[in-house]
């Protein structure tokens, strides 16, 4: 335990953040957090001034996902705090570790409906892993240590610290504890040996094993064991949206995305599997389709660090509560002792045949130069280096990216999976760029989603985080329009946008703006943007009639895939 001289609560906070390794803070000052900002004035920690607190939280989130370290954001009380809420909820749904610090009115005014007072502890209780309101400056160091511990262990997630203004200014002697105890929290769960053995037995005896990787598997170590297990068993791997990156998508055993907008291969083959190893997924309705019919023929093994996920959405046959990398490691070792690498199985042949058909269709050479989603994403993949980070907004742009942009390693595909937050992409890509300044970061945007937080370009330009925004611009709220087209008899209620000249908008913020007319121009604009050290906005107009296909209608089983009629013959074989 190190004891510092007397200091204010605000300084204690910053010292504690520094001790936890925080190097950058995204935020906006205001009355109730001014004492902290006053201390920040001569503190060696970088602060990025945002335009809106929602973006500040998304930047912290993007930073966390790209770097693997918690992201930190600051906001003042009241509206500052409530503006963070969407970003916090987003991080919660996707298990991303962020530390949100909010100012609060002074203690004597709490509960009196003071100016800019809001009960942010009450508001964020259901969307944080935990939240704190230290009542004296001396509590702050321990609180910060606990916050980081809780945010970054077990199932990761956001933690909020709400600090009354008088606590920020209060003087006291500060003790920085070396150890903390959080009595009701034990994140280190060892996989149970009996269940591991049962899982090994099931997998080893499976004829058609398959793997479903969720967000909990998209960490470097877990991902490396996933690859080994998959290759040993010749088990194909499908991912949820959050799991993208857990498995190299150029691998012969990769099936790509599963679910509502999953690939033909993943959605079709999962109903044929006899054993499913699912890792770090909550079986979201967007991934499983009609849950009762999901993977009906298979025995399901479920690995998750969060015990509450076991049989929450889908009844499973075998559950292993543990960190994915640890569980996968021992399963792999068990399998190695139990069997030899398989020769080419009938199951593997079927996968290969199916994949050839699907990829032949999806990635066939485009004969014309017309701007369409698939070739746009194909050019992006071809142009960007392997370690580039692709961030998405929410909507059609996101599903096109998830379907058609192949990702090879964890932390290189960043998207708002659980909450589906429009406006996430641009600020998250700024956060990612802050974490990884040396790799290109591209935000694949839709015009609707982009316009929700477009003012973050000012942050990108002013703070020199030169991201590239590719607006796949259909001048409508694309996914809503798609649903209206497919399920609401083309009654296009409130979806037309076409309101903004994105080139002028980019230029107004000091960014590079360019509008392209065909694929060649897009390719050139993209290559040019990669050379610039300023933020780029590339406006890529496409038809408002483009759909994301294939699609499984909401509430249907994964086998009821729309938009793949011409592949009926493959579907029927098997």
């Amino acid at each position: 335990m190190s004891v510092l001289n007397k200091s204010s609560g605000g300084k204690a906070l910053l010292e504690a953040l520094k001790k936890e390794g925080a190097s950058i803070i995204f935020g906006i000052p205001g009355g109730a957090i001014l004492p902290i900002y006053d201390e920040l004035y001569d503190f060696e920690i970088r602060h990025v001034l945002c335009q809106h607190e929602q973006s500040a939280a998304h930047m912290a989130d993007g930073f966390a996902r790209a770097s693997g370290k918690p992201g930190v954001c600051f906001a003042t009380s009241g509206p500052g705090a409530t503006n963070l809420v969407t970003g916090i909820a987003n991080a919660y749904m996707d298990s991303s570790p962020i530390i949100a610090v909010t100012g609060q009115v002074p203690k004597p005014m709490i509960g009196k409906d003071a100016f800019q007072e809001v009960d942010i502890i009450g508001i964020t209780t259901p969307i944080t892993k935990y939240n704190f309101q230290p009542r004296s400056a001396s509590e702050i160091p321990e609180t910060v240590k606990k916050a980081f511990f809780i945010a970054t262990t077990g199932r990761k997630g956001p933690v909020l610290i709400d600090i009354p203004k008088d606590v920020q200014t209060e003087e006291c002697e500060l003790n920085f504890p070396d150890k903390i105890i959080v009595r009701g929290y034990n994140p280190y769960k060892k996989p149970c040996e009996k269940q591991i053995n049962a899982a090994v037995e099931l997998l080893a005896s499976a004829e058609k094993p398959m793997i479903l990787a969720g967000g909990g598997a998209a960490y470097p170590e877990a991902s490396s064991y996933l690859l080994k297990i998959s290759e040993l068993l010749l088990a194909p791997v499908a991912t949820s949206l959050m799991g993208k990156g857990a498995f190299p998508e150029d691998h012969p055993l990769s099936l790509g995305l599963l679910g509502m907008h999953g690939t033909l291969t993943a959605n079709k083959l999962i109903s044929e599997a006899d054993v499913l190893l699912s890792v770090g997924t909550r079986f979201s309705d967007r991934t499983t389709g009609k849950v009762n019919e999901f993977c009906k023929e298979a025995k399901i093994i479920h690995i998750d660090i969060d015990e509450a996920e076991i049989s929450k959405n889908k009844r499973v046959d075998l559950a292993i509560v543990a960190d994915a990398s640890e569980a996968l490691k021992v399963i792999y070792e068990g399998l190695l002792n139990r069997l030899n690498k398989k020769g080419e199985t009938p199951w593997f042949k079927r996968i290969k045949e199916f994949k050839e058909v699907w990829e032949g269709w999806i990635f066939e050479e485009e004969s014309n130069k017309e701007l369409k989603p698939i070739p746009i994403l194909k050019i992006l993949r071809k142009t960007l280096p392997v370690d580039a980070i692709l961030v998405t907004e929410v909507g059609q742009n996101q599903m096109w990216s998830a379907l058609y942009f192949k990702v090879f390693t964890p932390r290189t595909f960043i998207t708002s999976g659980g909450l589906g937050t429009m406006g996430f992409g641009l600020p998250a890509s700024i956060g990612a760029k802050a974490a990884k300044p040396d790799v290109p970061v591209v935000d694949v945007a839709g015009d609707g989603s982009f316009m929700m937080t477009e003012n973050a370009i000012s942050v990108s330009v002013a703070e020199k985080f030169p991201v590239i925004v590719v607006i796949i611009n259909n001048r409508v709220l694309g996914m809503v329009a798609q649903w209206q087209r497919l399920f609401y008899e083309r009654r296009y209620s409130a979806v037309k946008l076409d309101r903004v000249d994105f080139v002028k908008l980019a230029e107004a913020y000091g960014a590079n703006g360019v509008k392209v007319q065909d694929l060649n121009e897009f390719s050139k604009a993209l290559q040019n943007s990669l050379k610039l050290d300023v933020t780029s906005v590339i406006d890529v107009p496409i038809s408002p009639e483009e759909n994301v296909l294939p699609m499984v209608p909401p509430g249907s089983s994964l086998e009821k895939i729309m938009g793949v009629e011409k592949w009926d013959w493959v579907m029927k074989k098997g």
Partner: protein
Amino acid sequence: MGLGNEKGLILISAIVEHKPGVLHRISNMFRRRDFNIESISVGVTEFKDLARMTITVKGDANTANQVVKQMAKLIDVVQVNVLDWANSVQRELALIKLKAETHEKRSEIMDYTSVFRGRIIDVSRDSLIVEVTGDSDKIDAFINLTISFGIIEVARTGITALSRGVISPIENEGKA
């Protein structure tokens, strides 16, 4: 995992941090996850910084499973179990204010109260307050029996419960 009783009620016992806001976090989780609390009772324990909550929830084994796991996930919950109805003891306390304008009625109520091992804890000219302790069925039975006198007010604590035998695994230095 123990199931509900004949009314489909699951009995949950939890040890939680005894500090402000904890009840909010727990009850908020029940609302958020769409579990319906039938009764909840909270009080201090043998440890000065821990409280015990006894909660009953309607549902099946899946509900029981999820409620326990979701509660265990809360940082302020130190321990949580489903109690088996047969392997635990449950009690509820009720205060029942009854109309009793005449001597006959008063003495009739007193007779019933003594049969139910209750106590008369307040008497006014026109009413009585009876205290009854027991399992919820017993209190229901008493209320049904005395409803004809005219019930003015009822206050019930909800079930509180402990498992039978020596199985308290909580270790705590702060034992009172």
